[in-house]
């Protein structure tokens, strides 16, 4: 994007979870859930984040919002580092960043009405009460394509797609500038998924939010994002403009990922799977490049030294020792 200051700038974000054991629950190991992630996100931009299960996508999302405390790293919102802020100091910033979760069934308190759920942030931040609040909630309902008369219904009376709309309305209520979407459509039916994706895109167009959009479905990410970051075992291994990434994937993992996506065309015959085996445990990530255990191009250096993200074209960065355009040299 342009040179202007990005809305969100994450530098060297690290989140380690302690694996406890022993007599006094001392720490015996560390889950390297997020291990040095940096990216930035401009206003009105969508950054997609893909990667295999357990690679740390949700952890990034939650730490960015300070729903869990980062181990280290900076999270700059409009240039202000919110990582070290106290809970009270953080409160005003909460209005600028909101989240939509994957599971629309668990994201809504089953004992509150939809209207109360959407209106709650307004109460908490003292933005509106009483009739004014109702009015605003009704407005939000309309914005996400729900009928205001559904405000008094309970979550279980809505379908999955509608629930996700309620979640979106709740996120919108504080007028945020950044919405983090953690797999917002993964739990939805295909035909409903399109409705939600379209809604998200429409809202962005109107209100110029930024999205940090997480999904494991490459196609969905590709559709909604401007730029896409690929994560593997707690790190971003490749980040690029969407078209660039899909047209010209540099990292062997990205390549494998792309090749694994089944294409809805019987004529495009499948190739043999590009990678074998499972994702290693983040408790003891392999040394060097974490992907080397499954990488068919791995060279010795990959096993010992960890590659850093390096430029590989305009707005294209990749973390691979074979960053020479194809990665298929040896």
């Amino acid at each position, binding site marked *: 994007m342009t040179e202007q200051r990005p809305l969100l700038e994450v530098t060297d974000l690290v989140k380690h979870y302690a694996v*406890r*054991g*022993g*007599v*006094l*629950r001392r720490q*015996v190991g560390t889950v390297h859930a997020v291990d040095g992630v940096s990216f930035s996100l401009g206003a009105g931009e969508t950054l997609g984040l893909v990667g295999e299960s357990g690679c740390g996508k949700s952890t990034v999302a939650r730490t960015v919002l300070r729903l869990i405390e980062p181990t280290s790293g900076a999270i700059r919102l409009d240039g202000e580092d919110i990582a070290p802020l106290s809970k009270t100091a953080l409160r005003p910033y909460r209005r600028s960043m909101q989240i939509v979760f994957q599971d629309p069934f668990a994201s809504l308190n089953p004992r509150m009405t939809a209207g109360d759920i959407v209106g709650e942030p307004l109460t908490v931040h003292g933005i509106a009460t009483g009739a004014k609040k109702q009015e605003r909630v009704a407005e939000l309902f309309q914005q996400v394509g729900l009928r205001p008369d559904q405000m008094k219904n309970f979550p279980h009376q809505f379908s999955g797609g509608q629930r996700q709309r309620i979640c979106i309305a709740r996120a919108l209520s504080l007028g945020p500038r950044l919405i983090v979407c953690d797999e917002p459509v993964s739990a939805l039916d295909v035909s409903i998924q399109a409705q939600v994706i379209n809604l998200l895109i429409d809202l962005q167009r109107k209100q110029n939010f930024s999205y940090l959009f997480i999904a494991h479905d490459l196609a969905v990410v590709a559709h909604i994002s401007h730029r896409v970051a690929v994560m593997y075992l707690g790190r971003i291994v490749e980040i690029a403009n969407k078209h660039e990434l899909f047209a010209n994937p540099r990292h062997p993992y990205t390549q494998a990922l792309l090749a694994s996506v089944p294409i809805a065309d019987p004529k495009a015959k499948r190739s043999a799977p590009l990678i074998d085996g499972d994702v290693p445990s983040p408790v003891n990530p392999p040394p060097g490049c974490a992907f080397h255990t499954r990488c068919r191009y791995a060279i010795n250096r990959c096993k010992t030294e960890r590659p850093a993200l390096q430029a590989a074209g305009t707005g294209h960065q990749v973390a691979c020792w074979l960053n020479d355009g194809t990665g298929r040299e040896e």
Partner: protein
Amino acid sequence: MFAYIVRRLFLMLVTLFGISVIIFVLLRVVPGNIVDILFDAAGFVDPADKANLERELGLSQPIVIQYLHWIGGLLHGDLGYSYVSEKPALEEILPRIPITARLAGLALLFSASIGIPLGVISAVHQGSKLDYALRVVSLSGLSLPSFWLGLLVLMASVSLFGTMPIFNPNPKTWLEAITIYAVPAMAVGFRSAALTMRITRSSMLEILRQDYIRTARAKGASEASVNYHHALKNAVLPVITVIGIEAAFLIGGLIVTETVFNIPGIARFLVEALRWRDYPIVQNLVMFIAVVVVVVNFIVDMLYAAIDPRIRFGD
């Protein structure tokens, strides 16, 4: 695994320490002490004699000193002397343990051997008349006051057999030995059997809904194999926990049962000692019971781990 055990043992010590403090303080909050009770029969309390006796028994010391004294003794295996019998507390407590242990063991055995099979049957035949009948029986088991049940058993035994199982430390015949323990054990075990049955039933029902049960069926396993081979082993896990917790409740049930059947075990002894404010006995006995409960729960956890591979390997 080893670290886990050590950690558990450490927590056990913390718990026991807490119990020792609580019971110690509670006892001393109770108004009146052994001296009042000893004097009670005399029909008056002589303040001078009382002070003398309190000094003699160490009751006049500050409570912290008394506590340290007790715990210090405990650590050396010295449990102090019973205020009432003036015998070493250990000597009073030890011979009673096997009696209660036998009773409790039998009761648990009874509850498991009746409760688990009936629970399985009830679950497998969920919704049938048999299920209803078993559930009603088990609920009544939980609804009868245990002393009442015990008394009924005794009365029935007198009117049916003209005799009743009165405790005898040296039973002459096998039959006598069995009736002495088995009848009270059944009276107290009835409740736990009912509970075990209920837990087994709901646990079975839960397990029977699991995906892997469907997998077993899809393999062509017979109903019996599904129920007993696949489901029961999983279903028994929560049952074990409940039996562990029940072990603690059992002590309560035993207090009443030992009273009704006049069995000189530790449960009744505890009540008596409490009545006499015989601190050394009460304290040590409660600690003993707590140790047993804690250890039983520990064993249950280990057992759980032995049956459930998920626990053995993960922490």
